[in-house]
């Protein structure tokens, strides 16, 4: 049906444009409940390990949940660290659900035994996401630590036995596990689970292993075809930079940082997205006067991110409309300007700029909450001379 003369259709901006200019409240947000973790994955986005003594208290967490309820944030992605190590984990879960804020939480599975699996099954509006970064123990444990594969599979067994239904198996796609995508599918199918693939980011400890773990460009093309053929696979809109290859992947295909998504960290700091735990992208704190709501609506950072962004170096590229220039966090932590192409630009448009990056200039997330302080994390003291922009070399061994 053609637009009628009196129609307001023509004047209405496209939904994506409206989303880019921000909403009164996030559509969904990620909330890292704790930096404490029993594991220490080499690519951890939040450099987790040790609990931060300034962690939000149970009462403070409940106040945040109250705000999310008032803002009509329908669900929250809870992560960490390992969120289940918080002693009030189930209390917060129950409170959130009772306030109409559904919970999807990510876990390594160590703490899901038969009893916890039954408890999770008995709670409405809970989604569980078990992290698995290899389809076999050798591949997974090289990244996530010895024993972590068996622990994740045990948790899956418990959830299946309890009749939880379709939980999610969440895989960070790496150079090492891309050949295993069919094997991941088979594991998910064996449980009636949903497979979720997300993009490796050079954030947190991920910066240290980026050069060794991020997929090759040929692998990215394989992944794109895999995802196009399987629209049922969940991605959290992670791979929108691959939409430059042709048909758009399912999803909104935009960077939602500070516009439709954000991150609350364990001490209440609010960041633009889960992949930019760095002062430059810290918008404020839920502990500030006005709470989360004021940070979301008024922080200088978020207001700025909702302004039209310059295509910069991508202005002359025919794929810019499809990929939007890619991921802000991936650019930032590889030392690229925010208006440069994505470091994993499928057309290789970032390659020259990446080669020109001085490793000493790379932003650091600081030591974070890693159990072993990263004494060698500062480029100034790095003794490893590498041509690629990495802070130091990390050997990922499967032994």
């Amino acid at each position: 049906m053609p637009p009628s003369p009196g129609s307001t259709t023509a004047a209405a901006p496209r939904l994506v444009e409206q989303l880019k200019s921000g909403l009164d409240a996030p559509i969904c947000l990620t909330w890292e409940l704790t930096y404490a973790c029993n594991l220490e994955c080499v690519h951890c986005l939040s450099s987790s390990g040790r609990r931060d003594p300034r962690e939000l208290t149970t009462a403070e967490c409940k106040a945040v949940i109250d705000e999310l309820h008032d803002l009509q944030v329908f669900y929250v992605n809870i992560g960490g660290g390992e969120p289940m190590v918080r002693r009030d984990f189930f209390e917060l879960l129950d409170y959130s659900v009772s306030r109409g804020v559904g919970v999807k939480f990510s876990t390594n599975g160590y703490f899901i035994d038969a009893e916890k699996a039954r408890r999770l099954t008995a709670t409405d509006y809970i989604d569980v996401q078990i992290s698995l970064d290899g389809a076999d123990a050798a591949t997974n444990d090289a990244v996530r630590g010895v024993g972590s594969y068996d622990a994740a599979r045990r948790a899956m067994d418990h959830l299946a036995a309890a009749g939880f239904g379709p939980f999610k198996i969440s895989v960070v796609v790496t150079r090492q596990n891309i050949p295993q995508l069919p094997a991941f599918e088979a594991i998910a199918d064996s449980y009636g689970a949903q497979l979720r693939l997300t993009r490796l980011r050079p954030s947190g400890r991920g910066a240290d292993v980026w050069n060794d773990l991020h997929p090759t460009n040929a692998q990215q093309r394989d992944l794109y075809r895999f995802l196009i053929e399987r629209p049922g696979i969940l991605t959290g809109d992670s791979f929108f930079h691959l939409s430059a290859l042709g048909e758009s992947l399912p999803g909104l295909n935009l960077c939602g940082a500070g516009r439709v998504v954000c991150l609350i960290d364990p001490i209440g700091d609010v960041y633009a997205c889960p992949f930019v735990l760095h002062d430059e992208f810290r918008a404020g704190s839920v502990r500030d006067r006005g709470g989360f709501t004021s940070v979301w609506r008024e922080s200088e950072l978020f207001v700025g991110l909702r302004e039209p962004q310059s295509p910069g170096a991508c202005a002359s590229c025919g794929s810019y409309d499809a990929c939007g220039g890619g991921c802000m966090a991936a650019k930032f932590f590889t030392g690229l300007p925010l208006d440069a192409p994505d470091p994993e630009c499928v057309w290789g448009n970032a390659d020259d700029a990446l080669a020109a990056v001085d490793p000493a200039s790379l932003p650091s997330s600081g030591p974070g909450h890693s159990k072993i302080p990263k004494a060698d994390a500062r480029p100034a003291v790095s003794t490893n001379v590498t041509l690629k922009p990495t802070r130091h070399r990390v050997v990922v061994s499967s032994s």
Partner: protein
Amino acid sequence: MRRLLSTLEVETSRVVDGPDDDLDAGPVGDHPGTADIGFDPARPYALHPQVALRPEPFGALAYHYGNRRLVFLKRNALVALVRSLGDHPTVDAALDAAIATGAFDARQRSSYLKALASLAASEVLCAPAREET
């Protein structure tokens, strides 16, 4: 083209557009057909009890706590129509009332009807159980 609806399945981040919808937020995914759920505008419909509406500048977000699907209602007139459904004995009556009050033009009736059918297919709307007589 009308752009009345987009559906984002939260867990899949999938955007599915309404049947009469210009593609403006991503690829069209599979969408439950409207015919096979037997949407009948001669019957009453109402917002599904598990659905919450959040007002937005462009219209509203509808979230279904059961199927975790997020739907973008991209017209304020559509949001008002959805909210009004419970006050009318049939969907047709709600559409007639909206047109009578100038909420939208009569020529747009079929677009709004299709949007409602799509919302029913996504279980944003449901039909009350048939009365047993």
